[in-house]
Each structure stands twice: as C-alpha cells, then as structure tokens.
C-alpha cells in the first residue's frame, strides 16, 4: 500500500497551492474588510483568465470543451488548496455536468457561454416542501400548445440571485413514476428571485418564483420525464468535493492555530506550552488526517468507477463535522482575535455549519450508510473486506 501522491498529482497540487498563495491569499485582508460575499465578478474572471494561461481551466470539463477532465482525486487535491483561503474562488471553464448532454442548440446557448464565464446558471431542485425527497416536488410544467408553462417555487438555490438562467426540475406528469422534466429557463422568461440571508457570509442562496413562466419545447433538457435521473446525476457529481473543501479549510485553521500557539504569550510563556492548547491541536490534527483519507478515498472510488455513494457519504458526514470542530478549536486558541472579523476564523465558524446541511444533511448521509449495511449493499471493511 502506497500513500504517496504521484509526481503529477503533487506537481498539480503545488501549482494550485502556488496560485492560491500568490494570487488569492494577498486578497484576503481586503476581502474580509469589505464584508462582501464574493469577489467582484470581473476580478474573479480576470483571476480565472490568469489561471487559464497555465491550463487550470475546466477541471471537470471534458477535453473536447477545452477542459482538463481531471480525475476526481486530482480535483480533490486542488479543492483542498483553494479552500485554504476564505476568498471564494473557483477555476473557470466549468458548467453543470448535466449540460454536457444538452442538444446542439442548447449547448450553443447555455453550455458554451457558461464555460466561458459569459453566462451564469443555477440548478433549481429544492423546494420549500421537497429537499432530499426530490420526488415530492410540486413545481409544475404543463403543456400549452408547443410551449410549457411553469408554476411554482424553488428555494435555497445557490447562485439563484445572480444566475441569468436556471435548470429547473418540474413535474410534467403527476401520475407517472418518472414524471419530472428538466427545463432551461432564462431569467428573461419571467422568473424572479429573492436572496435568503443566512448565517454564513460567503454563501447566499435564493428563492426562485415561477408564475406562469412560458418556455418553448426546445428548452427541455434531455427527455421529457428524465428530470429525476438528471437531478440524481447532478447531485452525484460533486459531493466528494465538499469533503475536500472541508479538509482545506481545516488545514488552514490548524496551521493558524499552531502558528498562534507558538506566538501568543500569556503568563510569561507561549500558550502552546499549555496542555489545554496542545490537546486541541493534537485532536484537530488527528481528525483532520482521518478526514483527509476519507475524502481522498471517496474520490479514488469515483475514479476507479466503483459505486462511490457509500464512501462519499462517509467522507461527507465525517469531514463536514470535523471542520466544525477544528474551526471551533482554532477560534478558541486565538481567543478574542479569533472572534474578530480581521481573521477568517469567525466567518468560517459560521460558514461551515452549512456543510452539514446542504447537498444531503448529516442525517441523509447516515441514512445512506446504515441502509447500505443493513440491507447488505456494502460490506464492513469496504473494498478491503
């Protein structure tokens, strides 16, 4: 068993790390002071353009769309690095995975401009009465001549207030088992949005309202009735990435905690000389290391084509809880400084709470894990059993 990264993985990781260190970390102080939820769009696009010059573009996009089509594990390594700063950034050149299966006209109108950063989409599945039980959605689309007319409400939609189009999952046949369909709906078609203020500063989802929104038949993504399958594919695409994100945040927090413990003096000695602080550091390191391997192992399962749902659920459950504990301890070690808005710790403390909720709550992950074991879908010991 070899726990090393390959040379390529390490070099790609190092390039991502250098980019974060040189381009993003220097922006952190001003970003925190600004109180903004994200970088100005233009600034983010110019950073993406800079990264594109050295090929960091379209990490998950197929090569025929100019992407890198990187293995999930390599993508996870990059996400860990990017998560080390609170400055929200993602390398450009990507689009929602289900858009790659769109027809030629839709690719021209939605996929390609999204990859180029000229359009911004959002994925609208969740409703006030339907979250992980996606089959309970009520937003409907009914045929009216050659058109479809959409009515309903979507909520907690990431990018929902900024997007200029939405991929909307709506019920098209209430009696059929596969009775939902995905639609590409421009904001111009008449839907509106309201941001939802949340506990986190850097994530502002929105509620979307559809009132007699009319779209032509050409806006159906995939087939009529394929909405639920597309939604499952969308949800499945990147849950392992959230775990990597947790690992990156926790790494940075622990680094800050260790540095501060070696710097800050009280009662004539460094606070790192106190066992209370030492134990917080030791526990954080241990949990972080466990989380790292769960996250990478889940990505490895994705890459080897195995059914990764079980290992992804374990990784998400553990990593999202781990990061909360590590941020909390790092903040505690920093004392008043940790509570101040001059450091990213208090922001992370609030932001990471969402990770135990979105893309499947802790409880949903536990449901998946226990069901897999109780019904014999997986074996104790996983692939080593």
């Amino acid at each position, binding site marked *: 068993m070899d726990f090393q990264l390959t*040379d390529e993985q390490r070099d790609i990781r*190092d*390039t991502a790390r250098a980019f974060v260190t040189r381009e993003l970390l220097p922006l952190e102080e001003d970003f925190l002071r600004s109180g903004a939820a994200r970088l100005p769009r233009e600034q983010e696009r110019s950073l993406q353009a800079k990264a594109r010059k050295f090929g960091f573009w379209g990490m998950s996009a197929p090569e025929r769309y100019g992407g890198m089509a990187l293995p999930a594990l390599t993508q996870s390594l990059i996400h860990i690095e990017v998560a080390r700063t609170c400055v929200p950034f993602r390398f450009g050149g990507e689009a929602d995975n289900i858009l790659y299966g769109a027809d030629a006209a839709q690719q021209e109108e939605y996929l390609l401009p999204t990859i180029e950063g000229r359009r911004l989409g959002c994925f609208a599945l969740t409703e006030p009465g339907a979250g992980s039980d996606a089959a309970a959605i009520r937003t409907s689309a009914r045929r009216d001549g050659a058109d479809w007319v959409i009515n309903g409400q979507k909520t907690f939609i990431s990018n929902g207030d900024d997007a200029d189009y939405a991929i909307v999952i709506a019920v098209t046949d209430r009696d059929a088992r596969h009775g939902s369909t995905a639609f590409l709906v421009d904001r111009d078609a008449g839907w509106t949005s309201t941001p939802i203020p949340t506990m986190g500063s850097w994530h502002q989802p929105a509620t979307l309202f559809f009132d007699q929104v009319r779209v032509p038949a050409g806006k159906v993504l995939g087939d009529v009735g394929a909405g639920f399958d597309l939604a499952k594919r969308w949800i499945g695409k990147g849950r392992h990435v959230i775990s990597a994100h947790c690992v990156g945040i926790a790494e940075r927090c622990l680094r800050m905690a260790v540095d501060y413990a070696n710097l800050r003096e009280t009662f004539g000695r460094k606070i790192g000389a106190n066992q209370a602080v030492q134990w917080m550091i030791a526990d954080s390191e241990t949990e972080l290391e466990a989380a790292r391997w769960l996250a990478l192992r889940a990505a490895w399962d994705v890459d080897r084509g195995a059914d990764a749902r079980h290992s992804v659920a374990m990784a998400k459950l553990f990593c999202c809880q781990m990061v909360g504990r590590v941020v909390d301890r790092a903040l505690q070690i920093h004392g008043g400084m940790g509570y101040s808005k001059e450091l990213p710790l208090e922001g992370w403390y609030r932001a990471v709470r969402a990770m135990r909720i979105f893309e499947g709550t802790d409880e949903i992950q536990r449901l998946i894990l226990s069901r897999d074991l109780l019904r014999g879908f997986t074996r104790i010991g996983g692939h080593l059993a």
Partner: protein
Amino acid sequence: MNIVVCVKQVPDTATERKLRSDDKTLDRDAADGVINELCEYAVEEALRLKEAHGGEVTVLTMGPDKATDTIRKALAMGADKAVHLVDPALHGSDALSTSYALAQTLKKIGFDLVILGSESTDARTGMLAAMLAERLGTPQLTLANKVEISGAGITVQRVTDYGFDKVEASLPAIVSVVEKINEPRYPSFKGIMAAKKKQVQTFGIADAEIDAAQVGVANAWSEVADFAVAPPRAAGTVVKDEGDGGVKTADYLASKKFI
C-alpha cells in the same frame, strides 16, 4: 541559442531549517525541498529568451536525489531537458567547490548563456555567478533586472544602489537575475504532464571530470566552526528625550559604530 539555467533545491523557508550536528552542513532531509525562489525567475527569463530567439533551455542542478523534484518543476515550467549532477562526493561542497563542479559540468554540456538566480535562500552567498564566470573565462553580468540579446551580444540592466548600470558583453556569458526581472509563470497542466517525458541526464563526478579532492565537505575552503540557535531578541534601549534626544541617539549609534 543554448541556454543553461542553474537551479538549486533549498529547504522551504516556511519550515524550520536545521544544520546537521555531525558535519555542520545543512540538514536537507529535515525540511521539504523547494526550488529556490530566485531560480524560478532565472528559468522564466531563459524561457522568455528562448521564445524570442529560439534555441533550447537546459536545467542544471547539483544536489541529492530528491533534487529531481526541483528539476521536474523547471521542466514543467517549459525547460527542454535537464542535467542532474549528483554524487555523494559532492556533499557539503562550499560555494567555491560548487562553482568548480558546476563549471566542469558546464564545459561538458556546452552553453551560449548561463542564467542563475542572484542568490539562494539557504546559503545566501550570492557568489556563484561570479565564480562560474571566472572559472569558465566568460563575462559576468550579475544582478540583472533586464536582459537583451542581439546577435552575439548581450546587454543587461544591473541593479545598483543608485539605480542601474547598463552592462554589455559578448556571448557566451554568465548572467544572474534579481526578482524584479519578470513574473515567473506557473507550471502549466500540460507542462506538468510533459515534464516526465523530458530527458534528465544524470552526471556523477567522473562524468563531469570533477576531481574528488576539490569537492565535498572535507575539501571546502570555508568551514562552519560552530553554530547555535539565535538568542531571543533582548529588550531595546530607550532614549528619553529631555531636550537632548538627538545627541543621545547619535551617541548611542556611535557607541555601536553605526556612525
């Protein structure tokens, strides 16, 4: 144009750096090895000159086995091939013997232009470019923040305390660069994937006709007699201004031989 860039692997400045207790040389296993930052500027300049004038960029490094990481980084940035001078006999070589070993290797591989970073973050002697030029009998153009090639001639802006000097020479020549010269590129995704297919030649001291009696810790001209952890900074001297603050400050500086 055949450009050789000398790069050095140094311990990461972000980690704790140590000397070995046995032979008082740098403990290269104690810290992560990274490419010396100024060497990245040297590689970048070499790549820009190649892009403008054609030719080939060869990376040359002297260091232990793990220095291959640094070679790979330079190759990923876009250098064409590499030479790795590695031999247990070279361990502990000081600046003077390092310049001898590198000069011998450069004679073997040939060059029109050699580019170096002006110093390394570990030893910080900043002497290697001048020593190489002397040993190879070529002009030295050090501390360059701008390099121009025209035909067989080279012109650099040499950074000085008062601005810069314009220095001209003919090729072949040795150039050292400062960090103001350019912004090093990131290794590209394609470059990273291509790096492993590029040629890395390994030289031992016999290959480069290096005399073992002139290199290594036993033959170094400089010696680390002793070392100790730097003492914690002592409290400063406070000058209280009672109308004579200027005089007191001047007296203090004079007592320390600053003025």
